[in-house]
Every structure is written in C-alpha cells, then in structure tokens.
C-alpha cells in the first residue's frame, strides 16, 4: 500500500524539518518546500494527497499559493490545510478549525493533532469524491 504523501509549504525550515521527521516516523511520505513561490512546482511534481500551507510567508501569500494550486487541473482536488500563527484559540475553537470554508491549524500544534487532521481531511475527501485516495 502506497504511503500517504504530505507536502509541507512553510518558510520555517526548523518547523518543516521537525514535522517531516515526526510524520515520516508515523509512516507518511513527506516533501518540504520552504519557499512559497515554488509551492506549485513542487506540488505538481510530488502530487501530494494533502498540503499543509503556511499563511504568512515572506514575498508570497499563502492564499495566493493555494489559489494557484487549486487552479491546476492535476491538483484541484488536493485538500489544503492552512497552518497559521495568527489565529487565536477562541477563533479556532468556536469555528471548529474552519474559517470561511477553509481548514486552519493554529500553531503550535502537536503531531497527534496534525495526524488527526490528515486522517479527518482525507476521510472527508473520500466521502465527497467517492474514490479511494
């Protein structure tokens, strides 16, 4: 069975390094991109099952990167989960980690929560498309 592929796009190398190690330890295949501008290129090449995308990055906005990825036919159905350092606890709690139809994870977050988010998001994707990932 193929490993689930997760793409991490975040400008913080130590963060992506640690999360990559943790997720790989838990059996995921992980690719990291620390430059948001290359996010789309890497995604096209890697064809992930899910993308974690930082909201605020130097020179490029996470929202723009997400829009580019979604406009690509080969990536349009890939779920994107935003990682943000700017959303408060109350906002994420009350909104159930979904703001404006988009899933957010507020940093810092435990690896367990990241894994739960991957499983839940992919399960929802399967339900929606009716196809196995």
């Amino acid at each position: 069975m193929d490993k689930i592929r997760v793409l991490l796009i975040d400008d913080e190398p130590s963060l992506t390094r640690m999360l990559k190690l943790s997720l790989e330890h838990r059996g995921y295949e992980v690719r990291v991109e620390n430059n948001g501008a290359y996010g789309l290129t890497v995604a096209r090449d890697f064809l992930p099952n899910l993308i974690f995308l930082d909201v605020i990055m130097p020179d490029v906005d996470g929202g723009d990167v997400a829009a580019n990825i979604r406009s690509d036919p080969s990536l349009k159905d890939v779920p994107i989960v935003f990682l943000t350092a700017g959303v408060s606890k109350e906002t994420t709690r009350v909104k159930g980690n979904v703001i404006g139809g988009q899933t957010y994870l507020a940093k810092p977050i435990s690896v367990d929560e990241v894994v739960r988010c991957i499983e839940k998001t992919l399960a929802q994707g399967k339900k929606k498309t009716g196809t196995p990932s």
Partner: protein
Amino acid sequence: MSVRPQVEPPSPDLKAAETRSRLEAILNLSRDGILVIAKDGTIAGWNRGAEGIYGYPAGAIIGRQLDILVPYDRLHELTEIDRSIQRGGTIQDFETVRLRSDGAPIDVSLSIAPIRDERGHVTGALVIARDITVVQRAIREAAQSSEKLSDRERMLRRALLALRQSHEDAKTTQLQLVQSAKLESIGRLAAGVAHEVKNPLAVILFAIDYLADAIPSPDENAITALKDAREAVTRADSVIRGLLDFSTATELSPTTQDVNEVLRRALQLVRHALTKAHVLAVEDLGDGLPEAMLDRNKIEQVFVNLMINAIDAMPSGGTLILRSRRDRMTEVGREVGVRKTDQFQVGQSIIVVEVEDTGTGIDENVRARLFDPFFTTKPPGKGTGLGLAVCKSIVALHGGTIRIENKAGGEGTRATVVFRSIRSREGRTDG
C-alpha cells in the same frame, strides 16, 4: 397766591405777617405737592407743586372732593388714611398711584399729618405728595433688567452645564479613543509577537513529539523532561493566544441573538470542566427574553470565561447558577442617564445575565483589579490574566456592562452582564 393753608390765624401783628409770608414762599417754592384736606374730605389748600404733579390749577381743584385724585380701585385707601389721621396718627412715605387731571396714573409717595385746632381737635390733614413716577419707572426697569439678567444668568448656567457635559463627553470619548488606540497598538504588537513566537513554539512542540516517538525506551527522567517541556510550550502558547484574543476583542460581527441560546452553548463547552470539578450546573433562564445584537462567538467566549472562573472558584465542588432575565432601566445611575450618549437610557429594555458560584468569594483588593490585563490569582499555567480583561472589552464593545461582586452573606461570587435588548418577542422595538 394759590395756597390758602389754614396753618395760622390771620394776625394784625407785623411779625405774624412776615411769618405767614415766609411760610407761603416755602409752600409755593416746594416741588412737592402740598395739599390741605378739610375734615369733610374737600381740598382746601393746593400749592404750585401740587399743580405740577396733578395737573389741576388751584382754582379748579379747591373745594372738590379729594377722591377726584384717586383711582377707583384705590378708593379704599382714603378710608384707611382718614381713620388713621382721625386717631391723630401720621403716615410717612406711603407709595401709591393717583390720577392726573388728564386721567393718566402717576406714582406718588404721600406723607400725611393731622391738622389740629387750638383745642387739639383734628380739623383736617396736610398732605405732602412727591411724584415718584420716574423713580418707580426706574425701579420697574431695574426689576425688568434684573429679570432679564436672571434669565440670561439661567441661560448662561444652562450653557455652562451643557459645556461641562460636553467637556465630560469629550473626555470620555478621548479616553475611549486612547483606550482603543492602546488596544489597537497591543493588537498589532500581539499579532507580530504571536507570529514570531508561535513558529518557534511549534518547532519545539514538533521536536518534543518527535523525540517522544523516536526514543526507543525512554527512562523516567526523559519522560518527565518531555512532559515538562510540552507543558511549558502549552503555557507559553496560552499567553500568546490570550493576547491575540485580547487584541481582537476590538472587532465585532453582531447579529440578532437569543441570549439564552448563547448561554446554553457556552454551558455545553464547559461540561467537561463541570464534571471534573464535581460542580452542579443550575439553569434559571427567563422565558421570552427579547433579542440582542451580539457577536455570538465573542459573547460565548465571555460566558465560557465567567463559567470557567466560577468553576475554578469551587475546587471542592459546588453549584454553578446561570440566570437570565429581562429588565428595564428605571432610574438615573452611574451608567444610566437620559442623554443619547449615556451607556443606558432611562426606560431602556435590557437583558441581565448572572453567573454565580458557591465558592469562597473574592477579596475586595482582588475585586478592584479583576479586569486589569495580566492580573490573575490562578496558579502559574492556569490563567493568563487576560480572560476578564477580554470579557470587559467585548461587553463594552456591545454597549453593555459587566461587574463581579461577592454575593450577600459571602457565599460565593456573582458576575452580572447587562446588554441592551433590541426587540421583544412580540416584535416591539425597545431600544
């Protein structure tokens, strides 16, 4: 010679003639009117001064009844004056109104003394009349001026009061602006700090999780170290998130809300904490409450915060009581007035929410600082000291009030939140 005063009997004596001449000169030079009134009320003497005041020449008035000079509504004065004179009394400076020959009223001051014969019997009266029309007019004008002055003074006082009020309003607005600017600065700072601190915290947390996964069989010390490190990250994150909540308390998205519904949702969110602390929740929520314009998430945050504080105040268990009711502001108070700028207006329909605990209550010194940012009585790691500061900001943004006090008898604490209601269940607009 127009005066025939019967003050002295005619005398062949030259000295007496001289005296009489002097007396006549005095009478006729006087600007005051000098009248001699006979016992039967007829005018028997009339000097030039009297001619000037009343307008009658002596020839036209002598022998006429005195009442020709008196307005109809003052005729009663004659009886009273006559009675006093007959008793031998004198009248000084009696201010009244008399009539001129052309019918015009004149203000006069009268001094009246009895005239006696050689046996001391009163045979008539001497009247000295002074025209005080000018003086009276001046007095009336002065009184009118004084009244105008009083009116102006009243207006000035009112203007001064309004000015003071405006000044107070301006000061309040300025304070609010300063507060708002402070919050905005804190907000910008918090957002910046959050981003800069949360990323490293995330790295640390991922690293801790990785180490926990990767170390094959960690000893007890390693497990404790990882646990402590994880808790430290959680504490630091809690402060940052509290700061973010505090800074974003300036933005509202109000919609029409049922306060009871928001309270029940908040209660659901603290169910776990209630069970863990062996606290029983009692709902006493009013029926048919009017709705209010509220940012549901933020008000839910306020209620959750108050409930968590109440639960924390009962470590050995107790009862959490939630109350809601509709009410109306009935009298002017600290936050209630009659002006539009007042927080609440008299007669305004309100919704009152109370969150009570059965804990030990709070010390007065603590109570005074409850809403200060970063003030907390909770142990390290349990509270950031921003919860109530955030609550106060949120409630104030809704135009409401929040206060926390010990219950009468010292059995616990009551937090009271007051909101303006917008509409009753029947659809009547209240505010």
